[in-house]
């Protein structure tokens, strides 16, 4: 592995720090106000989404723009089961995750044959299509959306999202150290060479895609129950994917904790912007993306990464990008 990253992502120091942070996060609701609990729940959600995107976008190098499709699938599966079949949340949620996996395997086996721009836009199209499908169906409530039962306590969602975040970050630690992870790294670095070595690319890419999708789906399910109202544009919302990508890219794609760090930094910044003006929030966010891309395309990764790996690869390309 000359230029490929070592299966990094976690050393002992980082793990200790993570364990301390986790302990603090577990105790946090006992001392904090509702506002901060909600704020942190949001950060956990986007930390999970960014870490999930990292599995396909960072480790496998496939720039997925369709994560929101699985957010929608998870949200609607959970919502429909809870509202129409009166299934309790804890049972409805895994069904949403499962359906996200099924959808990822089905779509992935087609879309993952495409490369680069084509893969990106096809996944983007996938979201737009599912949004239209959800608007046309009866069981989803169509364009008017659906209301979910209101939960008794919102602190529960804090712990659901925290659990999801822990799982997603753990997946980012485990994946690159597994046999599947080595195959995925080989495919990312040079697919043709990997194929010559006997690695059939498609199944491995589907595994990475499904692993990413299940977290998007579960996040969607928790989100639906947390916000209690869903309609096609709010859950099949490309912004979920874009935010996850921006956070992962600026936190350090292909690292276990980078996407989480990116989520913490950007979501905090985002909250400050929202506090300045809810109305102009989306404009601020768009401008923030533009400015970050132009002035810090290497992102925060620089601070956390030793030379080599994806960050170095991007850096090398970025160096020669201006005209």
């Amino acid at each position, binding site marked *: 592995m000359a230029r490929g990253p070592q299966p990094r992502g976690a050393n002992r120091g980082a793990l200790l720090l993570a364990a301390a942070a986790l302990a603090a996060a577990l105790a946090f609701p006992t001392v904090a106000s509702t506002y901060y609990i909600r704020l942190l729940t949001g950060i956990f959600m986007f930390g999970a989404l960014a870490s999930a995107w990292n599995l396909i*976008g960072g480790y496998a190098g496939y*720039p997925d*723009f369709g994560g929101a499709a699985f957010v929608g699938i998870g949200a609607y599966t959970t919502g429909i089961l809870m509202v129409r079949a009166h299934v309790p949340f804890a049972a409805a949620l895994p069904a949403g995750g499962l359906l996200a996996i099924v959808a990822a395997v089905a779509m992935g086996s*087609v*879309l*993952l*044959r*495409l*490369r*680069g*721009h*084509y*893969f*990106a*836009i*096809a996944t*983007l*199209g*996938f979201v*737009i*299509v599912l*949004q*239209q*499908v959800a*608007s*046309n169906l009866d069981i989803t409530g169509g364009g008017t959306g659906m209301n979910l039962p209101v939960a008794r306590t919102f602190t529960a969602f804090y712990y659901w999202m925290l659990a999801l975040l822990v799982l997603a970050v753990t997946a980012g630690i485990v994946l690159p150290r597994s046999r599947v992870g080595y195959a995925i790294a080989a495919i990312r670095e040079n*697919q043709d060479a990997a194929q010559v070595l006997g690695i059939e*690319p498609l199944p491995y890419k589907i595994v990475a895609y499904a692993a990413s999708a299940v977290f998007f789906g579960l996040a969607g399910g928790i989100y639906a129950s947390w916000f209690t109202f869903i309609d096609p544009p709010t859950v099949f919302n*490309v912004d979920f994917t*874009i935010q996850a*990508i*921006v956070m992962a*890219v600026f936190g350090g794609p292909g690292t276990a904790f980078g996407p989480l760090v990116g989520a913490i930094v950007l979501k905090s910044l985002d909250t400050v912007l929202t506090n300045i003006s809810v*109305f*102009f929030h*989306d*404009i601020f*966010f*768009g*401008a*923030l*993306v*533009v400015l970050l*891309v*132009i002035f810090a*395309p290497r992102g925060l990764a620089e601070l956390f990464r030793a030379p080599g790996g994806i960050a170095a690869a*991007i850096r090398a*390309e*970025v160096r*020669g*990008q*201006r*005209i």
Partner: protein
Amino acid sequence: MSVGAQIALQNAVNGLLIGGTYATVGVGFSLVWGTLNIVNLAHGALVMLGAYATYWLFTLYHLDPLLSLPLVGGALFAFGYPLQRIVINQVVRAPFLITFLLTFGIELVITNLALAAWTADIRSVTTAYSGRSLALGPVVLPAVRIATLAIAVLVAFGLQVLMTRTRLGSAIRATASDQEAARLMGIPIAHVYALTFAIAAASAGIAGGLISLSFPIFPAMGAGYTLIAFVVCVLGGLGSVPGAFLGGLLLGLLQTYAAAWLGPNFDNIVAFGVLIAVLLVRPAGLLGRAARFRG
């Protein structure tokens, strides 16, 4: 002529008429992609700006939408040049994930500024001739749609002449095929990139003007047109004006027939289905040069 055949014929005519507008949406997107290697996710937002420009010129100054097209195109040209020169040129050679994010950020800013300025209200342009149509045997031809197709043909023809018969066109094509060689020949790359983007923005603006005559106008309308531009481009092949035109007509036909069979709310689903089918079956597009994207 049987009723079934009559309906099929009418659908074909409708499809070709709307296809002209799709071609105008796609041709600029194709130009930018083929020349700058950027998939411009803000393309639909530029279409939206064109539609609003037409709407306001019509509503405030009673300027006929068809006559205001040059103004709208000029305004979008003036908007597109600095956008590329100052902003997008900064990262034009970066990995495509970066340019994707950048153009998405630009789309977000433009769309939400439009939302802040003009609200989410759905607007439309209704002229004196909006309801008129021409009966040609059993087929009805709406006057507005004929005019838009004629203008679409004109725009495509103009672009093709520009690309193949002028110095600027040669410079753009040279830059597209080998940037370094073009630079060594004395072509000012940054300027050519900005001009290419500005021309694409102008055509997107004109497309928006055409769309405003037949379809609702609202700030978030752009995303659907970006998808259409992409499908048209994939159907026709990268950077080819005649290809984009053919792709537009084909997509128009497919969507019209699909709407007749399935109902009106399946346009994006059909566009996406076509996209995937073409990518998997005919990778280089119908008239296009080969691109490496299978993986």
